[in-house]
């Protein structure tokens, strides 16, 4: 089941490889079918998922089956390393509360991404092959439970992303693409070293051999004393935690490693921005929750304050930057940075409320930001401009569009009744109840105010007020005093067409529905998050040492 959902896009990609590149429509349809297939499997997994099973670590006795679900475990590589025993790499997939929502989100965003890619005209075949490769890599990251496998999927994302930004991007795409590539690679090469170090430090209790299994690594009892990342090697454990954290923080992206993101977003085509904001950024915080924190819980506990401070900087700095932007897409990109700050703040709270808020915020951020970028794409398709001050009074001739913009904008600023509110509220409840993060939470609340400021301000400038004819059409007044409208590059009606509605309406429905009744997602994650909090708690650790 999980293998199928991971590799379905690659299969679609292989089929596309065989289709002649002139058959653009067939290529698109094959991709769409692949993505829908992924969606169907995701729903099936969701229906089968048992939310009472905890995940995170193995069940008592070391068995995986009592804790994770839909496990697929096949020995992959087995090498003899002489005095270090065998090197075992497993093809190990499974889901728990941390990953199930991300699997659903990835499947959803993949479908929307394909729909949004319909307008791509340049090198369609190459585009969809890379797109499908990316879809496989993203999904693989979320379900891999073996560090090696995770790393392979993690790095596999980089190359397609590089080309997708670099070939189909805007005018400054070369710079944005290589910047993205270098930043993320810089983060992940350290991960490679930590991964190797962990391998030599962890023993799988069932086999007695070293292992790459993340589940075994998440149990502090499996670490060998005296190994490079063993429990007594405090210095290297701190170093390993920090470099892993930086690796994931680059993906989040966390200040001061965030500068690649606005560049990448501004240059990337709309569907790639959607994927980037909707799924890729989540991999950073997912990696922290799955790998970074549970593997080094004592360092995590020691670093809560720092994580919280960086979270607050992200929230406030991101909001300030968003406030200053002239380019609508850049504004959304910075707002995305700001909102990922809430996730960091929730993670730093180290309690159930904060963690649930963080994970729920990851899901909501995925849907809301995806919607924001789609909406930006809609206006850019029509006007070939994203400058906020070039627009005005859009509401009067694009009413449906404006309605959806209002949903997304308000969800983003955390209006009660929309999904963003609930997750941010949970994050703040968590952060206020933890003594470490309380003062930082107080400061972070300001972020909501600034968030409201840039969102409402842009809304007012673009959608309300006087029409500004330059961006979308020319207004001509003929000799008889009649007004004639000449649209730029746009035939007929300006408001959303059917394809755009199919992308946007489901997202709006999800955002509203999860704002009113969050349990479909909350219910999936709570057990696992509680378990994670327990694994990370200082008490649990002192029991081990």
């Amino acid at each position, binding site marked *: 089941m999980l293998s199928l959902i991971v590799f379905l896009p690659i299969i679609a990609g292989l089929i596309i490889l065989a289709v002649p590149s002139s058959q653009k429509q067939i290529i698109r349809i094959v991709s769409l079918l692949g993505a829908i297939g992924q969606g169907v499997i995701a729903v099936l997994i969701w229906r089968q998922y048992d939310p009472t099973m905890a995940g995170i670590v193995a069940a008592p006795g070391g068995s995986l089956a009592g804790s994770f679900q839909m496990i697929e475990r096949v020995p992959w*590589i*087995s*090498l*003899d*390393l*002489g*005095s*270090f025993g065998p*090197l075992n790499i497993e093809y190990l997939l499974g889901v728990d509360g941390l990953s199930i929502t991300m699997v659903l989100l990835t499947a959803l965003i993949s479908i929307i991404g394909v729909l949004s890619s319909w307008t791509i005209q340049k*090198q369609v075949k190459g585009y969809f092959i890379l797109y499908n490769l990316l879809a496989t890599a993203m999904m693989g990251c979320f379900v891999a439970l073996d560090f090696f496998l995770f*790393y*392979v999927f993690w*790095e*596999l994302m*980089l*190359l397609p992303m*590089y*080309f997708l930004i*670099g*070939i189909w991007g805007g005018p400054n*795409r*070369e710079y944005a*693409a*290589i910047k993205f*590539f*270098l930043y993320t*690679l*810089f983060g992940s*090469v*350290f991960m*490679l*070293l930590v991964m*190797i*170090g962990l*391998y*030599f430090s962890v023993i799988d209790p069932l086999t007695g051999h070293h292992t790459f299994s993340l589940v075994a690594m998440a149990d502090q009892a499996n670490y060998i004393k005296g190994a*490079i990342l063993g429990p007594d090697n405090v210095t*290297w454990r701190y170093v390993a935690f920090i470099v892993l954290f930086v690796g994931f923080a680059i993906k989040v992206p966390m200040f001061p490693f965030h500068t690649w993101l606005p560049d990448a977003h501004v240059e990337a085509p709309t569907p790639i921005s959607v994927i980037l904001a909707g799924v890729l950024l989540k991999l950073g915080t997912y990696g922290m929750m799955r790998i970074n924190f549970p593997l080094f819980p004592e360092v995590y506990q020691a670093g809560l304050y720092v994580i919280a401070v960086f979270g607050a900087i992200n929230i406030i700095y991101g909001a300030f930057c968003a406030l200053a932007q002239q380019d609508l897409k850049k504004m959304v990109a910075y707002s995305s940075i700001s909102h990922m700050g809430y996730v960091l703040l929730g993670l730093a709270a180290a309690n159930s409320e904060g963690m649930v808020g963080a994970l729920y915020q990851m899901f909501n951020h995925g849907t809301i930001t995806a919607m924001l970028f789609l909406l930006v794409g809609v206006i850019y398709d029509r006007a070939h401009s994203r400058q906020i001050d070039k627009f005005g009074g859009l509401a009067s001739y694009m009413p449906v569009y404006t309605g959806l913009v209002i949903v997304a904008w308000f969800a983003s600023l955390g209006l009660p009744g929309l999904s963003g509110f609930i997750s941010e509220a949970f994050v703040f409840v968590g952060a206020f109840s933890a003594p470490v993060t309380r003062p930082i939470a107080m400061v972070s609340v300001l972020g909501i105010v600034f968030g409201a400021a840039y969102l409402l301000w842009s809304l007012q400038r673009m959608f309300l007020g006087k029409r500004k004819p330059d961006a979308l059409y020319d207004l001509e007044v003929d000799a008889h005093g009649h007004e004639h409208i000449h649209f730029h590059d746009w035939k007929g009606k300006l408001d959303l067409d059917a394809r755009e509605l199919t992308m946007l309406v489901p997202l709006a429905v999800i955002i509203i529905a999860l704002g009113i009744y969050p349990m479909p997602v909350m219910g999936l994650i709570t057990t696992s998050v509680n378990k994670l909090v327990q694994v990370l708690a200082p008490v649990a650790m002192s029991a081990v040492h």
Partner: protein
Amino acid sequence: MFEMPSGAEIQSIISILKGGAGYFVPEIYLSALFMVLILLDLITGKKNRGLLATVSIAGLVGSLFFIFKQQAMPDTQFFFGMYSLDRFGIFFKYFFVASGILAVLTTVIDDQLKKHESGMGEYYALLVAMVVGMMMMASSTDLLMMFLSMELVSLSAYALTGYLKREPRSSEAALKYLVYGAVSSGMLLYGFSLIYGMTAETNITRISMALAAHGYDQLVMILAVLLIMAGLGYKMGAVPFHFWSPDVYEGAPTPVTAYLSVASKAAGFAMLMRFFFVAVPQGFDVSASALHIDWLSILMLVSAASMIYGNVVAIWQKNVKRLLAYSSIAHAGYLLLGVITMDQLGTQAVLVYLSAYLLMNYGAFYVVILIANRTGSENLDDYRGLGKRMPLLGAALTVFLISLVGLPPTFGFIGKLMIFSALIAKGSLFMWLALIGILTSVISLYYYMLIPLNMYLRDSENAEQGVMETGMGAKLVTASLMILTLWFGLFFQPIANYAKYSSVLFGAFLN
């Protein structure tokens, strides 16, 4: 005074040689192939390109059979301790034959060599001679034999580099190569003679025993080690003995460049490992080892310098061959990381890395040749827009470059993984080297990606936009190399296990 040996002595020498010859079959066979190629060239005249290439490939493939038969033989030393047969040597024999086959394959497609008017007879013969020489470099256990085999490789390489006689760049490269080569050979020989002076032995195992038994002068020893390292460093193309490589790589016919960058580098590493592991072993636990020659520290510096210099300087290269030349300096640095650990895991890692390097570097050069055939240029700027015009080759070249960076799921990643595993298994001792290694590999991403950047992200300025066709055979070779690079990136078990099996050197005790 020289005394005539008696008849009985001569008899015994002959019988020893006869006995040893049984272990020397692949080398004898390939030497015969060398002569067959020369004779064929003489007989058939100038219209013999296809025939010579076919005979070379068939001959090289045939030699695999004899190497395979050696696998059943016990590890041994023969020819009066001049030469050895062990798994380590056998691994390199396979390696050199494979690289020889690839060299022939790259030669056949190269337009520049095709146009070469004075025939290709000596070319293939020299290629085969170099295979023999490199095999001997990997298996010699005696200083004299080591020197001889290295000279055999070098002399063949000089001639191959200058093979395009009318091309000034080629002749210039050959001359530079020769001058540098002569100096380093001299240094190597000087180092050898110092060691001989201290121990009165030329066999590396006996040298080790003599050094342990009688002691030695620290200063002389360091001097000898430095000189030997200079000679070997030249073959490996490591900093600071790398000065020849960018010019030679740029000027030599591209198939020769590929051959030098992979095979001759590997031969240098084989000899380095055999000499240092056996003759002057040094464990990190200094008290436990009898010898305190700190050649490892020197190697560490060489390795770090190679990684940094190679990767940083490559950034500014505009010529793809030069770019790959600097990258090959950097790869020498990565390979040295595996040598420095001085254990079985490290040796295994070096062998895996070399196998990966063989595939990916040959793949990259293969595509570079195919592109140069079409565009007549190796400049980065002329790669613009090629991705659209040659889809398969572009994709393949991207895979090879990604593999050279060391990203999964490619074989190059496995090489890096093994090397870094070997380093980290030693604890925090080599962490700084591992850090330099990974940071420079991030730098390497930048310059390697310049090639896909030009191929895919930029459009060519000239009007010609049609798809460029390449021959079916060339496509097949490229595709197989690409698939192998990806396949071993995911399923590297057989190669890694074979490398483990081969990391046994005659007379070396690796922990």
